């Protein structure tokens, strides 16, 4: 396993297999979730990350256990890549009491104290100020953790993006802002909502160092994340990565995708981050068919186990409805 503080990824066969495993794991998990959604095991809004896995898997390589992570409502991949147990994530998808948020959050609100995973935030842009505050807490307590904040390009239109970048830079806080630019804020294409569609330029206007990364290339994401995290940890203040990516599936399970062409989706699928890494590994001779078979079998077993865990989970008794509204008290 790579050291999270290392500036460069060590592209050993094991590490590359780990990245591939991480992405396939997220992909298969979500494919299973889509199936379970059809069976009405999972309800509510569910937003799939399929196509974007390289970002969460790549960026998490640069994070240490002491770091804090803030994500959006499209966060299954981030939770899994961060190390939130798949059992708990799946049980949360079901709304079971064994879920990682005790069933109270569902797909959009995965939380996990053990891995410092602060959600699962479903107000676009709302997680950025939290990350700034988490980073402030790190700095004020002389701890060396950073706060990593994932958000989509739609969040860039929110005031909280601008306020947060400004504040983070003004106070030189250790925040890694990761913009997952998948081109569409639900159905609105970037050019239709931003006068300046180059997001990294906006960050630079707040003096926040920013760079553009190919978000379909997990190694590129990891390398960039390691580079900027090293600068952040060295006291350089916040940084932003704009990861250019694409979501292969609909915005949510209710989206008929009238706003984009089938051809565009198919075209982007040629850049599938899993296929890309696998092909490259094959070309360089570090991936064999048996590796893929082994990964798929391992992932399949983990998912089967997680579904079983969720299925056998319990529904929280209605008598407990008012718990966790206030600490140790029932609301009146």
């Amino acid at each position, binding site marked *: 396993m790579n050291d999270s503080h290392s500036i460069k990824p060590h592209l050993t066969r094991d590490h590359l297999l780990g990245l591939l495993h991480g992405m396939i794991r997220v992909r298969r998990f979500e494919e299973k979730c889509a199936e379970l959604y059809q069976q009405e095991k999972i309800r509510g809004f569910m937003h799939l990350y399929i196509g974007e896995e390289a970002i969460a898997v790549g960026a998490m390589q640069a994070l240490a256990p002491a770091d804090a992570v803030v994500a959006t409502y499209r966060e299954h991949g981030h939770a899994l890549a961060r190390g939130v147990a798949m059992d708990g994530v799946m049980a949360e998808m079901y709304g079971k009491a064994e879920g990682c948020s005790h*069933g109270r959050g569902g797909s959009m609100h995965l*939380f996990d*104290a053990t891995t410092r995973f602060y*959600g699962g935030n479903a*107000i676009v842009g709302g997680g950025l100020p939290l990350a700034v*505050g988490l*980073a402030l807490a790190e700095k004020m307590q002389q701890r060396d953790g950073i706060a990593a904040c994932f958000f989509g390009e739609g969040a860039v239109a929110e005031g909280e993006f601008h306020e947060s970048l400004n504040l983070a830079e003004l106070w030189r806080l250790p925040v890694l802002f990761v913009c997952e630019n998948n081109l569409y804020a639900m159905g609105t294409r970037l050019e239709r909502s931003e006068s300046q569609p180059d997001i990294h330029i906006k960050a630079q206007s707040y003096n926040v160092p920013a760079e553009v990364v190919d978000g379909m290339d997990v190694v590129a994401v990891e390398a960039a994340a390691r580079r900027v995290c090293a600068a952040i940890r060295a006291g350089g203040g916040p940084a932003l990565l704009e990861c250019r990516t694409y979501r292969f599936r609909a915005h949510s399970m209710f989206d008929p995708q009238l706003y984009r062409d089938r051809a565009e989706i198919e075209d982007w699928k040629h850049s599938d981050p899993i296929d890309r890494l696998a092909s490259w590994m094959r070309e360089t001779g570090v991936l064999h068919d048996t590796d893929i078979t082994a990964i798929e079998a391992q992932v399949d077993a983990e998912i089967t186990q997680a579904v079983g865990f969720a299925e056998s989970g319990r529904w929280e008794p209605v008598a407990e409805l008012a718990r966790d509204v206030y600490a140790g008290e029932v609301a009146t």
Partner: protein
Amino acid sequence: MTDNVREITYRDAVREAIREALLADPRVFLMGEDVGRYGGCYAVTKGLLDEFSPDRIRDTPLSESAFVGAGIGAALGGMRPIVEIMTVNFSLLALDQIVNNAATIRHMSGGQFEVPVVIRMATGAGRQLAAQHSHSLEGWYAHIPGLKVVTPATLEDARFMLATALADPNPVLIFEHVMLYNRSGVLSADAGPVDIRSAIVRRPGKHVTLVTYGGTLFKTLNAAETLAKGGVEAEVVDLRVLRPLDAETVLSSVRKTRRAVIVDEGWRSGSLSAEISARIMEEAFWDLDAPVGRVCSAEVPIPYPHHLEEAALPQPAAIVAAAKATLGV
């Protein structure tokens, strides 16, 4: 003045509370617009920057959502932030953070995370600051499960509610009425910790219960004095905490006096006063000898001219009239 009492203003009482909290706990820090060099828009935090570092007395940009959200994030990260928002009207720019994050994170995370943030802000009218600096929106916040909402009216509460709020693992909003800052009085030297869960009877009486909080407490006590001259003994209940509401103190008073008038600087429609009236109706209907009365602000944005502003706000004469109406006198 004897040794065990001292003259102090509400403003100084709040400042002492902040100072004490900063001295007591290294996790406590203050942030907000102009809290440092300027000394606070109501001069509450004057001098604190000289005594503490800019690290702990943080001037922020005019970014309510970011710095309130950062307060929530810092609380999640182990700090005990005191966030100051200049006025409740400005807090609307941070409504997302307060309502969608501070109030929900404990619940959404299944109890894994708590948000021990304290958010202070000025509220209310009386300084001719017109319709974007004068409203009383604390009742809105009292609508939200997950928040605690407190309204210190007395010097003792101004001085001691903060420590209790900081010790509370829940997000606590403190509303300081702008007309109270200059109010001075004596504070007993042995005054100490106060709770943030109970209402209190500020003046005992037997004929009618006057329920109020914050900036209208003293107007209500004033009205009670007037009523007393006419032989009407009003009991004045200071709610102190708008959420969770201590309905029992209100109800036990109403069961005794059999009459109630609610005095609230918020507007009448869809308001906290409506909530209290409803609770009395639900729980004490058969104890009532008269319909519950209300004295609230006129349903207008608060106007600038002094005479119109005064006309818009609850005043002692209207409180007296409403109390008498419940008695049919």
